[in-house]
């Protein structure tokens, strides 16, 4: 075997890595710089003033709370619907399964931005605009294809024999699902939930179109309307807000990536 690690590969990789980090450097420096602009520069008088300035209920807490409600709601609805749907698809053999799974896979291919204009029209007709629950249901529907696909794969990994033992002891199918199957696939369910949560947390276009009043807008939209549209932009505060808004998903990503890099790659494989 050749010695692992060639120097020119290291050099090329580090150069590419530096290019990927450069745009992010602006965020970090800018957030600490009271006089930040578009330029990347080491702050002359670094301080936490920008963070203090955005640390207000209206600017930070309410939008983040809305993001949390939106993402948690989407994650829970998706997870429950996906587990229920995955059970028959995983446990019964039927000619219904294959077309349904292909339909699901086709659903993951749908460009979600393409349906936002029709969805807006539909929400107007159904008088659902500006409704948080309706937006949660829509986001759940867009993440469901991927979630069902993943959940079924995880459920296929739980041996049927364990369940059958529970039935012999008199447990119903639902009881066996709750007591045997779900605990065994808990790490998998965690991956699905976190993945849906991250997607919903980072989504801008869906709440931008469907949630109109400021009191229900998540951080993704409020950050855009507070800073993006008003003439004189406080770039330092924008960077500070961006970092506070990004930290939760970065942390969740680390949790999942540590647990199982493969599951995430699988999840990523159908990211829409």
């Amino acid at each position, binding site marked *: 075997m050749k010695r692992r690690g060639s120097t020119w590969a290291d050099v090329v990789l580090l150069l590419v890595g530096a290019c990927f980090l450069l745009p992010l450097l*602006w965020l970090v420096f800018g957030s600490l710089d009271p006089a930040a602009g578009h330029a990347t520069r080491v702050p002359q008088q670094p301080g936490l003033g920008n963070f203090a300035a955005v640390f207000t209920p209206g600017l930070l807490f309410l939008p983040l709370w809305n993001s949390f409600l939106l993402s948690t709601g989407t994650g829970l609805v998706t997870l429950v619907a996906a587990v229920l*749907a995955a059970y028959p698809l995983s446990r019964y053999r039927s000619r219904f399964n294959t077309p349904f799974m292909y339909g699901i896979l086709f659903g993951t291919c749908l460009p979600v931005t*393409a349906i936002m204009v029709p969805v807006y029209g539909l929400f107007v007709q159904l008088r659902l605009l500006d409704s948080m629950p309706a937006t949660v249901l829509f986001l759940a529907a867009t993440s469901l294809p991927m979630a069902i696909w993943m959940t079924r794969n995880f459920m296929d990994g739980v041996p049927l024999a364990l369940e059958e033992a529970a039935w012999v002891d008199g447990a119903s199918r639902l009881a066996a699902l709750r007591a045997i199957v779900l605990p065994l696939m808990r790490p998998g369910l965690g991956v699905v939930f976190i993945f849906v949560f991250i997607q919903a947390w980072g989504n801008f276009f869906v709440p931008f179109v469907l949630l109109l009043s400021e009191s229900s807008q998540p951080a993704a939209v409020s950050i855009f309307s507070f800073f993006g549209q008003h003439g004189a932009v406080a770039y330092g505060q924008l960077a500070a807000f961006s970092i506070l808004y990004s930290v939760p998903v970065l942390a969740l990503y680390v949790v999942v990536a540590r647990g199982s890099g493969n599951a995430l790659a699988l999840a990523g494989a159908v990211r829409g």
Partner: protein
Amino acid sequence: MVRYLPVLPAAVLLLVFLAGPVLWAFHASMTNVGLTGRHARNPEWVGLENYQRLVQDPVFPLSLGLTVLFVAGSAVLGQNVLGLALAVLMRRARPAVSATVGTAVVAAWVLPEIVAAFAAYAFFSRDGTLNQLLGRLGQPETDWLYTVPMAAVVLANVWRGTAFSMLVYRAALNGVPAELTEAAQMDGAGAWQRLAYITLPVIRGSIATNLMLVTLQTLAVFTLIWVMTAGGPANGSTTLPVLAYQEAFKFGDIGYGTAVATVLIVIGGVFGAAYLRLLREQRP
């Protein structure tokens, strides 16, 4: 059939919120439904009028071309090739280096899209990081977002999305049997020959899948372009999602915007069907 009752909640959600809008799109694109005014609640049937307008509108072919350019440049060429190159290099580099660089590449991908878009906007703006770097090298300042908006959004999308291809190819390369490449090495094949004649043919299934998926993802990119250029200047970076949004919400013509969206849905559907076919061939 009772056994399949648990599928019902998911099926209802998918029918109402995914299949519903798609079917509604075909219908609404043949009406003059508006954002406000009397056509908002009581739209009239106009048949294929919106599509006739679409064909005559000079912005539509421009937008279609820009979308093809965006997908080909940032997904098929940029993300796909760079992702493969990174995955190949990571197998040769020191583990610590490849882990560090992998984190940097993935970071751009995990960030919320609006944050990534702000960072890319600042990077390419007139007094942004790119001009700072080029200034050091003695190059004159360029306003990238105005003079070459497509190049800026293509590069930004490569930055944003390469992690996905990199992860797919890292997994694929791990699945290439070591005996194959070692045997080729014994026979005197160089690194490039091994890549071209052994590795790439073995992972061709992953390449096809990845190409399909990055194409579909890139087709749907809206936020990045909207924040960086808002489709401008003079429609110079108006891809189809941006055009659909503008027609519907800026000009208040939901019917016409929906017609643009319908074209995008059909394109996505064609690629989706091709993707399914590909998967079925791979797993007979």
